[in-house]
């Protein structure tokens, strides 16, 4: 039974993930972005900027995986009728979702592998890695759910990328992800906490002892609220057949 389950997940992962092998320039683009950011931030901010960047890679890696890749792929599967093909088969929603996430892993690893290397070079506390990875997973789930709650309500599904790409830029480039929250005027610090990537980053910073603006309890509460809201919004629209 477990063997069959693993095979099914593997099957979906290969079907969904072959695109990275056949179109490797997407991976190449990811590597260049990671390298470019690393060099830029190190040049201007030195070691302390890199410490922030390392954990930012974990958060944005998960966020990109969820919001841009997984949700976008699910959206495209709906447009291209792959979704129906999977539903009317022994494949269940958890198998599909897990396979989809695994298939999108190369994009996640593009962020995480350099982050791990920098993490080791900076001799950061490796015992924190499981907690950081958990936050990364939470970031992926939250990203996927928020993106799906928008995508699944779109009247014209052909515009999926036109929604997910700006949403990604808006949530990781503008708010204090690669720069500290304290750089913003006080009133803005509270406003930007609404963007889910900000409490995710604040929690991650807290984990590795980088100064944060607010108590981690606040970040955790906001994330839980987002998770509940996004789950409700997704479950209302994401049916596995019998619609």
């Amino acid at each position, binding site marked *: 039974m477990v063997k069959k389950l693993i095979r099914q997940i593997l*099957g*979906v992962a290969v079907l969904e993930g072959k695109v990275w092998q056949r179109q490797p320039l997407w991976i190449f683009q990811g590597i260049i972005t990671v390298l470019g950011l690393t060099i830029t931030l190190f040049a201007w901010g030195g070691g302390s900027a890199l410490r922030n960047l390392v954990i930012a890679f974990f958060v944005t890696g998960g966020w990109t995986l969820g919001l841009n890749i997984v949700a976008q792929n699910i959206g495209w599967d709906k447009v291209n009728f792959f979704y*129906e093909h999977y539903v009317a*088969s022994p494949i269940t929603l958890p198998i599909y979702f897990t396979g989809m996430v695994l298939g999108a892993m190369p994009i996640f690893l593009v962020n995480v592998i350099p982050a791990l290397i920098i993490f080791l070079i900076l001799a950061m506390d490796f015992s924190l890695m499981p907690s950081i990875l958990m936050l990364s997973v939470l970031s992926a789930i939250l990203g996927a759910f928020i993106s799906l709650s928008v995508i699944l309500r779109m009247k014209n599904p052909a515009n999926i990328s036109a929604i997910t790409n700006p949403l990604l830029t808006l949530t990781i480039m503008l708010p204090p992800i690669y720069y500290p929250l304290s750089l913003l005027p006080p009133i803005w610090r509270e406003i930007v906490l609404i963007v889910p990537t900000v409490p995710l980053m604040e929690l991650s910073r807290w984990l590795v002892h980088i100064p944060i603006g607010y108590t981690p309890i606040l970040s955790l509460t906001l994330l839980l609220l987002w998770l509940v809201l996004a789950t409700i919004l997704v479950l209302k629209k994401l049916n596995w057949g019998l619609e």
Partner: protein
Amino acid sequence: MDHFAITVTDLGKKYDKTWGLKNATFTMGKGELAVLVGPNGAGKTTTMKILATLLKPSKGKAEVLGMDIVKDYKRIRKKMACLPQGFGGNRNLTPMETIRWSLVARGWSLSDAKGQAIKWIETVGLSDCKDRTGWTLSGGQQRKVVVSTVLAANAEVVFLDEPTTGLDVEARHAVWKIIRETVADGSTVLLTTHDMNEAETIADTAVLINDGQTLVKGTPQRLVKMLPYQYRITVKKGEQKSTSLLQINNSIDLGDRVIFYTENYREIKGLMSNFTDLTNVVSVDRVGLEDAYLHLIHEVSQHGKKIN
């Protein structure tokens, strides 16, 4: 009821305020190839989507392999495979990868899936391009890949929604062949099409559907026999005489051409005698499923006739 693969009773589906399917009722035997035929918007795809557990019916009842499609959907899905309308597969994959990994996703072992994929690649004549990605295949080749992906699963019940749309004659025949072979191997196949010729050629049973309702079910031959005519004559209008013949009841006006229906050969001769130039006669054929379908729709719309 054990010999029925599918039973559909008074099935309906409402989308917001519109009924996409009003009333479908039919049965289908195990190991049979039934074709749902009808024009665009007739309710074929909705019927198939309900049976494939993709849509929940708004009314009525349906069973697949004796299991209720709403209560037992999980068990049904283990025994079915479906080709949704418009499904073109993933062109980033080669035919070999598509079939193999789709089978693995259904729970097949890696080696069994590989063996089955090789078998199907050979069956549909894709050996020469088995390792080329879908981007380099022709439309017909890619269609063979997706249909094979569904049929290779050896599912007990297979749903194919317009599997040959957009294919040329040769590719269509190749797809028909593999579908018929799947039926010969014991699978039950329900297929939709708006191509009457396709239905007439490959169906064991045809279910005519129009305006969200099933009109009649039977073998294509039986449905054709229901027609009060045997022959169809297509002529160019050109002549005054042929235009006046339009007054005949059993005709369809096609602009500069007209189709006449006749009961027997004597009537054909009588009709032909109206033409001074026989080159205006385009064709004389025996009637087929398309004619039966048009006739039945006419009967229902004009006389509100119930047909069984």
